[in-house]
């Protein structure tokens, strides 16, 4: 893709200057992991780790990705690159890669704290990695979809917040899902992050008979649907 290395280099530099992403994507998950680890028993720290590990995915996929792309459209960056020989898609891909970097850095930091400080062990690391990747792909799909459908920055901000905060609060990322009343559990089951975090937790504790089929299916359907909608409705200006 022509122009990709150049736009990636630029986007990486700009990402380091984005205070929102550094706060929500990296500092916030680290702080929550420390907090939960300090106040809870070792077993529940391990369970919470599965949820906190997904914080970076939420911040990058549901906030960083859609808001940056909507901002590029608003500032006519997407339009301007179409008046160069580069592929305009290079901007979208480089932004996805940058947001992936956020996810990886955030995850690495949370993992380091969980394992080194609170002695958390991931029982099935291979499965954990696969579930983590699927959850990321699915959340990024939602992010691209928001970027495609939002007509302006205000709407993009509103939708991103509507997705981000419930997923952080209700999907089991910060508050253990298990303590919610049954009806609420059923209601938030539709949030993709709830399914992703259920998968991550099952891999952390190594629960062999965990019901993984439905979560995997839900995440895959969300991913396919959201990327299709995103591609169908994307506007460069």
């Amino acid at each position, binding site marked *: 893709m*022509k*122009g990709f290395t150049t736009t990636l*280099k630029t986007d990486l530099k700009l990402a380091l200057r984005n205070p929102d992403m550094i706060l929500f994507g990296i500092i916030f998950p680290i702080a929550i992991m420390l907090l939960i680890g300090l106040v809870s028993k070792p077993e529940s720290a391990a369970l919470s780790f599965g949820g906190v590990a997904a914080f970076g995915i939420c911040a990058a996929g549901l906030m960083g990705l859609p808001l940056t792309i909507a*901002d590029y459209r608003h500032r006519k*960056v997407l339009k301007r690159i179409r*008046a*160069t020989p580069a*592929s305009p898609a290079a901007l979208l891909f480089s932004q996805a890669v940058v947001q992936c970097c956020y996810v990886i850095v955030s995850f690495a930091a949370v993992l380091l704290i969980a394992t080194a400080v609170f002695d958390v062990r991931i029982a099935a690391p291979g499965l954990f990695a696969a579930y983590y990747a699927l959850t990321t792909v699915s959340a990024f799909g939602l992010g691209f979809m928001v970027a495609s459908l939002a007509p302006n920055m205000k709407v993009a901000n509103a939708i991103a917040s509507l997705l981000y905060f419930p997923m952080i609060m209700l999907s089991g990322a910060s508050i253990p899902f298990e303590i919610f009343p049954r009806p609420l559990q059923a209601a938030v089951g539709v949030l993709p992050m709830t399914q992703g975090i259920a998968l991550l937790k099952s891999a952390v504790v190594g629960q062999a008979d965990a019901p993984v089929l439905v979560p995997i299916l839900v995440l895959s359907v969300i991913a396919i649907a959201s990327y299709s909608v995103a591609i169908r409705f994307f506007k460069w200006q």
Partner: protein
Amino acid sequence: MEEAVRIRGLRKAYGELAAVDGLELSIGRGEIFGLLGHNGAGKTTTIECALGLRRRDAGEVSLLGLDPEKDRAKLFEKVGVQLQEAGYQDRIKVGELCACFAGLYSKPADWRELVARFGLSGRERAAVSSLSGGERQKLSIVLALIPGPELVFLDELTTGLDPKARRQMWALIEGLKAESVTVFMSSHYMEEVERLCDRIAIMKKGRIVAQGSPTELVARNKTKNLEEAFLLYLDEGDSLKEEAV
């Protein structure tokens, strides 16, 4: 004379409103061409359709012999563009923006040399958002020249600039002429096009109502200057309509 720009029967409507309505124009290589008209006359739509940034409803566009919609990647190696709206990322610095653009072309000009030539030396580490209006317009010309273009589009380059900055821009455009770069500029300052342009076209409600060299247009209408000729053309249709009512 070899043509750098050829537009035939260009049409573009937004809903019911015809923004460009059967526009014809042709610009020879090395010419400085000015498109004049009030706000809303269709200048920007013409430029954006010519560049393929907006899909035209009908007509043919050829820039340096290439179709901007079909041969985009090849064409923009040789065409530089300054658009009215910003088009740069939040928090980006002058040097980063220039380096980023240079990276998009196969044979970019030396952007540091351009930055120096346009009086922006020492500003490389400044955030683009912190630049003054004049500095930002200079930067947008630097970006337009990074491809080492044969053809440059300047959409209302001097709108909103103070007289001093405007005069600096004029000197820069005259520099392009000396390098025999073809320039397609839009403007609503008569003084500016009178001084810079070899040929102008006056646009009104999506159509070209007159074209020729500034001196020709003045002579044809026996007016004192271009401004009067311009107003004459723009008033003509309106007074006819008023008579009809």
